[in-house]
């Protein structure tokens, strides 16, 4: 501990484990161990402030067990959420859900990528990877948002669209493209937030925001680190190296102009204080909704188009 090197996320996790063990002992034995616990807790807090997370460590935080899912934010930030189901064509996808709700009081249309909370729920929701039905439901909800002038709030959290045989049969690529197109045509404001993982086209399908925000420990990329590692080194275990190359963290994306704002997470990650994480997300989304609220439908449409039109890096001779 006397080493001058910056602490790693691993160090923090070891310290957290010590504290939990001591707290457990204190509780079960009835002994007051505050004399030991207090300095440990202080040191942990201090180290958290110093910690410099690698890109791969952030990817791991974005996936950590207990990280809040979309519905955990929705429960804290909205009232009167009415989940609407089905694509009116084939099925009801559980990985991409939504419906109208009041976001800190404002009527909005929610589009949520939902990973699932327990094992059964996760399987049912394919760990947040949609079939085409999910995107087609999103399109239907966007139709309603337009009709009833409801701003769209999209919470993005997926490793990507589901790569299944039936998904291909039913036009996974087509559904994503149509969702991008539909969202770009909305005559209401759209605010998107990457709250965990932003994997490829499956994430972008509901990511056509007038504003795109990202949580501090979320990632957003054209391919997952594992996918990139498989392609480059034929070895998905090289995902940490791929994560570095892909520059997929929130600060990277802010620098590229792909997101407007990084939403700070509680020290150590959103899972350590979900209420606080939700408060930060709620405030940021509400603030952007309020700012956009002064514009007209034409401005929402053209502003969104202009925002995406200028993304990209090239030179011209």
């Amino acid at each position: 501990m006397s080493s001058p090197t910056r602490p790693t996320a691993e160090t923090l996790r070891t310290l957290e484990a010590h504290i939990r063990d001591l707290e457990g002992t204190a509780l079960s034995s009835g002994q007051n161990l505050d004399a030991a616990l207090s300095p440990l807790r202080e040191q942990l807090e201090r180290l958290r402030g110093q910690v410099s997370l690698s890109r791969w460590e952030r990817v791991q935080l974005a996936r950590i067990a207990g990280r809040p899912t979309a519905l955990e934010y929705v429960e804290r930030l909205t009232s009167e959420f009415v989940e609407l189901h089905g694509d009116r064509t084939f099925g009801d996808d559980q990985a991409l859900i939504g419906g109208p709700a009041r976001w800190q009081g404002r009527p909005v249309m929610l589009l949520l990528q939902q990973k699932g909370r327990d094992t059964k729920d996760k399987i049912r929701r394919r760990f947040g990877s949609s079939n085409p039905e999910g995107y087609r439901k999103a399109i239907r909800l966007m139709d309603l948002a337009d009709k009833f002038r409801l701003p769209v709030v999209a919470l993005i959290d997926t490793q990507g669209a589901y790569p299944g045989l039936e998904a291909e049969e039913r036009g996974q690529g087509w559904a994503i493209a149509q969702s991008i197109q539909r969202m770009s045509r909305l005559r209401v404001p759209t605010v998107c937030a990457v709250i965990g993982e932003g994997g490829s086209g499956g994430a972008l399908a509901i990511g056509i925001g007038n504003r795109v925000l990202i949580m501090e420990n979320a990632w957003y990329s054209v391919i997952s680190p594992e996918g990139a590692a498989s392609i480059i080194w034929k070895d998905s275990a090289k995902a940490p190296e791929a994560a570095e190359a892909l520059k997929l963290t929130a600060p990277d994306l802010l620098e590229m102009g792909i997101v407007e704002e990084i939403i700070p997470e509680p020290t150590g990650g959103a899972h350590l204080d979900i209420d606080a994480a939700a408060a930060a997300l709620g405030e940021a989304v509400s603030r952007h909704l309020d700012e956009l609220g002064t514009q007209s439908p034409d401005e929402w449409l053209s502003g969104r188009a202009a925002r995406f039109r200028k993304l990209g890096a090239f030179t011209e001779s």
Partner: protein
Amino acid sequence: MALDKFFRRRRPQVNPVAETETPDLWGKCPQCKENVYLRDLAAGAYVCPSCGLHHRLGASRRAEVLCDSPLEQWSGRVHPVDALKFHDTESYPERLKRAQLKTGRPDAILTGRGSIEGVDVVVAIMDFEFSGGSMGSVVGEEIARAAERAAQMGLPLVLVAASGGARMQESALSLMQMAKTTIALEALSARGLPYISVLTDPTTGGVTASFATIADVIVAEPGALIGFAGPRVIQQTIRQSLPEGFQRAEFLLEHGMVDMIVDRRQQRSDLAKLLRLLMHQPVPVAQAQAASSQAASTQVAP
């Protein structure tokens, strides 16, 4: 004996004149076989308190269950005619007369203005008691008028479907009601007003293939049979038995065709909540206070 019949038919069958009076009696639920005190059944929106069976409702009882207070009734002045001189085992006018006597209304539809938990609405309720809720010219006309008038008044439309489909006795004229109602609903779309349909047991045929399924939000009652072709016709086509639960509300939810299945006892609050959201109306004061205190408790600074 009247009670036996009541339960055998799985819907309240009462004298239309006294439809709102509930006899002080017990009956046996046809699904769970439990004894149910009829006044309890009525107080519980005609859902069996033991097994949740949603009994079929005539239009008047449906209006009572759905709305805050009696409707300002609009339907009743448009009457059916026998344009085709249709005669099968009896004449169409004879059939109509029987259904009119049974239900006390000129055709299979009740429309009017009312409110649901304080939200002003126009309602259109199909009456399955009247000739199986079949859609002829009058049903089409009343639904079209209700939609157009709702649009003029700036009110949303809530429609309760219960129908075996288009009415054979008006042949192609019935068929055209599918187009007429669909087109009349455009008036609501044009003004950005919500149209919610509630599909109840049974909703089939031309009603499923027109106004009932183009609603902004489609609600279904638990267990309701909903489909285009009838189960018997399909069985003849595929020549094998149909799977358990086929064409039931739960099956349709799974196949992406309805937005939600809502227990009848929960419908008023869910519909009101949805309508308020879609119409940018505020949360009622009592609920807003509860919500804000809850929100405050979760908005801890990071």
